């Protein structure tokens, strides 16, 4: 049986892990490979790096972070942020990433998804969707890009379906309304996207407690939950989140020490 995944997300800028509340007010949280190794040892099922640095020279820094992490960490690594071409995706995969998440660049040119899927296989192409509830239309969400700053007028559900049809093998779905609030995931958004596609959905944005993570999996139907601040600040551990998931009767990977 497929096990639910718990994924710590490390937002990286200028070689350091940072985490903003609603993508602003950055504060320094640590060395990315060091944090990744710590999370893997605590039972993280996957590590996600999001490159949120705007500077083009940051690309090389990100690649060296991935390389260093892949030497120490033996769980899957997903990298997102700033990939605009198949060649750039190749560089990230060569550095040791298993999957690459694309966001704004795929909205600007959806053929990026099909070109990358054809070249590397859909299993390593993740579509990262930032969605915001549409106040005028309850039960629908708009895709936003550029770190949540720019609305696109696209419907999030329709974009999820299009992205999967083009070649995305997984969806990293972030509620911009909830991101950084620690107020719980947008369960209606998760359910709506999960019902519309047949690829795995990773819930992101709003994790505050282990119970929120359980709700995203049990009620939202997500395959995986992703969180940043609650792990970085030590508010909850990977282990306590997984214990809560197991206690709710959902299958989850336990560490050797905990068996």
């Amino acid at each position, binding site marked *: *049986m*497929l096990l639910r995944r718990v994924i710590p997300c490390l937002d990286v800028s200028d070689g350091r892990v940072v985490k903003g509340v609603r993508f602003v007010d950055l504060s320094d949280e640590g060395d990315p490979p060091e944090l990744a190794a710590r999370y893997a040892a605590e039972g993280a099922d996957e590590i996600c790096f999001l490159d949120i640095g705007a500077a083009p020279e940051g690309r090389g820094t990100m690649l060296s972070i991935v390389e260093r992490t892949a030497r120490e960490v033996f*769980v899957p690594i997903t990298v997102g942020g700033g990939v605009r071409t198949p060649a750039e995706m190749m560089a990230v995969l*060569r550095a040791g990433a298993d999957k690459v998440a694309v966001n704004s660049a795929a909205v600007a040119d959806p053929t990026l998804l099909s070109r990358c899927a054809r070249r590397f296989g859909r299993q*390593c192409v993740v579509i990262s969707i930032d969605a915001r509830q549409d106040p005028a239309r309850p039960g629908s969400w708009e895709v936003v890009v550029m770190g949540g700053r720019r609305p696109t007028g696209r419907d999030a559900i329709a974009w999820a379906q299009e992205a999967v049809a083009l070649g995305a093998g997984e969806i990293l779905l972030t509620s911009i309304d909830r991101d950084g609030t620690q107020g719980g995931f947008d369960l209606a958004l998760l359910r709506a996207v999960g019902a519309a596609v047949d690829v*795995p959905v990773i819930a992101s944005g709003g994790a505050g407690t282990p119970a929120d993570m359980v709700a995203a999996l049990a009620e939202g139907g997500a395959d995986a939950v992703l969180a940043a601040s609650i792990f970085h600040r030590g508010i909850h551990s990977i282990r306590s989140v997984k214990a809560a998931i197991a206690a709710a009767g959902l299958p989850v990977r336990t560490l050797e020490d905990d068996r």
Partner: protein
Amino acid sequence: MRPDAPVRVAIADYGAGNLVSIRNALVRLGAEVRVATEADGLRDADLIVVPGVGASAPAMARLRRRGLAEAIPEALRTGAWYLGVCLGMQLLFDRSEEDGARMLGILSGEVRRLTGAPRLPHIGWNQLEAVRPDPVLAGLPDHAPAYFVHSYAPIPEDPAVIVTRTVHGDPFTSLVASGRIVGCQFHPERSGADGLRILGNVLGLVAADRGR
């Protein structure tokens, strides 16, 4: 060859993706690892590792172009071991339903799309359910978690080669072992401590065989 000398591993590089993680994992486990882009690179290797993701037909075309499609079976005839990971496991079989590719045919059987699966690709951690004991699984609990990323899996003609099955929709073959051949549909190099143990077990089997 001293029995405690590092196992010499050649990773077949035919341009099908991520060699970094499998190389890092084998280095971590003390193997002497090189990357082989052509037949010559397999010389004297105790273990040939064939990684890979993606489709079978382009993978086979690249293996042929680089002379590896002939050199790998030849190396196996002279005592080398084979460890196939994901696509590298599927390539062991005769043909793939995915694109009709004719493959290495070292094991009999066909690669088919997973059936009954709720979501595809099958991405994430799932459990290895042992159907028979095998030294490759030494030290692992039953239902050990392993990381998968695929939509296809082989259906071996000879059920005796099957070591574990995994359930995603209908059960499929997730680990095969036969003589000096091991194939993992999952990624041991991405399966945490349990995955490293499987790789360590394979290296141990290779080292013991070489000492004979």
